[in-house]
């Protein structure tokens, strides 16, 4: 069965006659070295980030990253996404094959997704949940250039004692204006996990951001 050898651009699954199933392209990029404890550490980083908005946390590192994903975004996906979550991912074919293999999450349109990693997806185009079920609001995983505490945006809200400064380099144009609109509709809204390298910081929908 040498034809079944997995390859970065090859296929893992093939039929008895050698025909490949559509969409069954594989990946050679690994998941967490320890799927149980690394996912736990990843979750604690996200939980800490979400409950203390603007605090920068480190995620557990993967042995090797698929092209198109930051270490932080990859760890967040492995930690939270699986076959039960609808996802919108636009990070290149290798990243998509990697997510398909390790998470098995169905790809949907951005507006219907629970987790979104798509630079083209606008904050206000995502599912904000409903008044009765605001927990259905999407989580946007947003890659930025750098995250730094102590300067920049001034954050206030639940989880923050008085205020917290977070400098975000490389946020999308118009993000703060969109964020003000997003926050105004709480408890509905979208929560954001900012990713830069292996660092994350979260912006739950309840947090207020002033330009610093």
């Amino acid at each position, binding site marked *: 069965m040498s034809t079944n050898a997995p390859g970065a651009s090859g296929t893992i699954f093939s039929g008895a006659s050698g025909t490949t199933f559509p969409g069954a392209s594989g990946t050679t990029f690994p998941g967490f070295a320890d799927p149980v404890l690394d*996912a736990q550490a990843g979750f604690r980083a996200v939980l800490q980030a*979400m409950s203390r908005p603007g605090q920068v946390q480190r995620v557990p590192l993967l042995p090797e990253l698929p092209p198109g994903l930051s270490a932080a975004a990859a760890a967040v996906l492995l930690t939270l996404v699986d076959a039960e979550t609808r996802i919108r991912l636009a990070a290149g074919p290798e990243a998509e094959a990697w997510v398909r293999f390790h998470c098995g999450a169905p790809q949907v349109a951005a507006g219907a997704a629970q987790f979104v990693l798509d630079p083209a997806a606008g904050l206000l185009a995502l599912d904000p949940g409903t008044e009765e079920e*605001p927990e259905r609001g999407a989580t946007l995983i947003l890659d930025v250039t750098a995250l730094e505490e102590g300067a920049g945006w001034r954050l206030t809200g639940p*989880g*923050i*004692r008085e205020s917290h400064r977070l400098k975000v380099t490389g946020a999308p144009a118009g993000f703060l204006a969109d964020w003000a609109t997003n926050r105004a509709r709480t408890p509905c809204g979208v*929560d954001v996990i900012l990713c830069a390298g292996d660092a994350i910081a979260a912006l739950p*929908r309840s947090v207020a951001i002033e330009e610093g």
Partner: protein
Amino acid sequence: MTHDPGYNFAYLDESTKRMIRRAILKAVAIPGHQVPFGSREMPLPYGWGTGGIQVTAAVLGPADVLKVIDQGSDDTTNAVSIRAFFRRTAGIATTESTEAATIIQTRHRIPERKLREDQILVYQVPIPEPLGRLEPRIAETRRMHAMADYGLMHVKLYEDIARHGHIATSYSYPVMVNGRYLMSPSPIPAFDNPKMDQMPALQLFGAGREKRIYAVPPYTSVKSLDFDDHPFRPIRAPHVCELCGSGDTYLDEVLTDDVGGRIFVCSDTDFCSERQAMKEAAE
């Protein structure tokens, strides 16, 4: 320490943990809102902390030190069994010391010692819906939460005052979280309610039978409902602890014989024994 190899780390399977983790994150993002989750059958009956255990299992890591209290006490059956459960299934360290713990699972009390930023408090919740006794239809209470329509609860408290002259709710006293959601603090004594306000630690609530998770992030406003002319007053028995002499902690009344003998002692056993040790050291 190692865990029993017959179980996944911390008992639950990974897809269940992910589901609970996603629910916890949304609960933290919407302080006080009850998030439904697919509560699993656990190896203990409903009412013994199945919700709290599932939340703890999803959060817990090998470096954590777990404390479990039941009505403030570290040595009751429920607390001892849950600590043993996680020692066996997760191989983690457990403690009776509030100071040494990183995760504290609690049934019906908040420790007397002030909690820190690096701690997580997990509540076992029997009835998550604060409006349930006033409006039994879940579809209706969900609508009331969506509209922040909490007049019914104010009427209930007003009727207390009309009937008894004061608000006669001594536990499970309803709170407003972040000025938006009415929340049940679980059946902690009203005495503990003020500790929830602006607490440095993250507070997570798990209701296993009712399949709800909710949360209060650190440094979040938690206000007990009241009226301007009938402000909220935390109630405690007007005595001092017989064992440690504390005059400002929550007390349990303990019968000592069958001829009316009774003493009052701290409900928080760790806090009380710490104070007793300090008193002995001073003497």
